[in-house]
């Protein structure tokens, strides 16, 4: 961008640092992917080698997909993640709009209270949550997980979105009020499209911990019909014998949907940024 300020040595160093970081970040993923295509012997004898003619094997994938339930586990994970993201974005954005747009008593206090959830992990409340779910008969339902994840995601969503909504031009909202638009129309039609980049950011940050979570699926929804992919993969981790082929294949497959979701959101993110640049 600024040729005068970037010497080749400097650019090289920056790139080197980025490459090293990429390798460090990606190597476990690559290791899992590589080994998922190897036979059991291949995995143990030379774990760092890519699959060769003699060690190549699809046995892991055959086990996982042959298990039959795995497709359902994927479905469960997708339902729980997508519905949770939807509610986090909807309620988070609504709360953020109220906090940033309207002056009312205890506005600041309410904002702080909501932000507190970012610092206090929801897992501290596990026992209470479990009792509540048991009492209301929600154990082993998607709804149990969706409720918990929505609660878990809302604080960060409110925090980020309120910040962005404050930057939406007050004149624009006032013009809409004079033109007779309702507060709901202003929120859904004017403000939400303008904070789309922030929504995409929140979606990504919300999605990953939900998809990867093992804790709540294990406690609230361990049943066969509601089991998520992350929990399902654990089945192959036995106390005495572990089916490594199956575990690695299951993990590799679990990366795919989240990768696809990420690409969808990040496209939105870029489109949102360019659309917001022109006022």
């Amino acid at each position, binding site marked *: 961008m600024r040729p005068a300020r970037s010497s080749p040595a400097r650019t090289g160093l920056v790139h080197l640092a980025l490459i090293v970081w990429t390798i460090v970040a990606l190597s476990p993923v690559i290791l899992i992917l590589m080994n998922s295509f190897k036979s059991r012997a291949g995995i143990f004898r030379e774990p760092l080698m890519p699959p060769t003619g003699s060690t190549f094997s699809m046995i892991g994938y055959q086990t996982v997909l042959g298990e039959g339930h795995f497709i359902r586990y994927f479905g469960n994970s997708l339902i729980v993640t997508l519905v949770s993201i939807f509610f986090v974005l909807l309620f988070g954005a609504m709360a953020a709009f109220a906090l940033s747009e309207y002056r009312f008593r205890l506005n600041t206090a309410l904002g702080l209270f909501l932000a507190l959830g970012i610092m206090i992990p929801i897992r501290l409340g596990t026992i209470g949550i479990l009792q509540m779910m048991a009492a209301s008969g929600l154990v082993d339902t998607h709804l149990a997980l969706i409720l918990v994840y929505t609660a878990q995601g809302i604080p960060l969503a409110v925090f980020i979105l309120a910040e962005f909504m404050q930057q939406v031009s007050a004149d624009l909202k006032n013009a809409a*009020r*004079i033109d007779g638009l309702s507060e709901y129309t202003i929120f859904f039609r004017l403000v939400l499209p303008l904070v789309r980049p922030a929504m995409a950011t929140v979606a990504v940050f919300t999605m990953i911990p939900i998809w990867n979570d093992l804790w709540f699926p294990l406690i609230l929804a361990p049943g066969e019909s509601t089991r998520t992919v992350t929990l399902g993969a654990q089945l192959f981790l036995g106390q005495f014998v572990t089916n490594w082929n199956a575990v690695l294949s299951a993990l590799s497959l679990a990366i795919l949907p989240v990768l696809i979701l990420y690409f969808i959101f990040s496209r939105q993110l870029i489109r949102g940024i360019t659309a917001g640049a022109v006022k």
Partner: protein
Amino acid sequence: MASLALEKVTKSFGKTDVIKGVDLDVREGEFIVFVGPSGCGKSTLLRIIAGLEDQTSGHVRIGDQVVDAVPPAKRGIAMVFQSYALYPHLNVRGNMGLALKQEGIPKAEIEARIKKAADILALDALLDRRPSELSGGQRQRVAIGRAIVRQPKLFLFDEPLSNLDAALRVNTRIEIAKLHRLLGATLVYVTHDQTEAMTLADRIVVLNGGRIEQVGSPMELYKNPANLFVAGFIGSPKMNFIGGAIAAEHGAQTLGIRPENLEIAADGPWSAMVSHVEHLGSDTYVYVEMAEHGLIAARIVGEALHQPGEMVRLKPVPEFLHLFDENGLALPRPA
């Protein structure tokens, strides 16, 4: 009949009083300009008239209706904002038509009104563009068009020219003046620029610190400012203020004289040293240093050949002297 009336309107944000009791009557078809320094409450007052902000006390009347509890869309007003505030997801036609659609006006009527406004504002070629595809001046015209199509009883403009460059600003100013004559509607216009106020207004309302300092036609304010604030705010370059013995001679605390009413003449009573000269072609501004009174400006028509460091004598035109008492209020003119 008053088309807009403010009665003892006040506004406080928490503990800060922003508007401290404003009374005003605006006549039908009048072009009213609120002018004052930045932060004096002009926009707040305008937003109260629009209904975007609730006054803390007092009443707002539009036409013959008290509108204190009427929402903005039902007040029969239209507003043009400094930042244009066009809807980014709608094209020009959509921007202009939205309010009418909300009011439930028939499609054909909406089309006709948009067409008429587009003719007046030369927007025909732009009707299908998005705001992002327009220049600043075009966006401003669309914002004005969006106000016109509503055929409001009252137009409100909040610093509509501030985001335009200097040349465009003069053009748009003339356009707005013409538009007002064409539509004959009542118009309240907010600006911090006294030139805009002087050139556009039927009557100017000078605001300072949430209070009205003076209301009057541009020339009334220019000729007979009620106090030091108005005297200093209206007119460019600013009125010179002289205190001390010279003012005391006239029985005043402060004596004011506009630069255009000061002559440089050998028989002038005040002696001063030229400190800086600005040649504008049509005029020359001569800034002189006057012992204990500081920098004084004189405006000489045409070219005046003075050099910094030169000693000159200044002669005020006596009928244009303004006298102010110790509270800054204007004293009756010396006969």
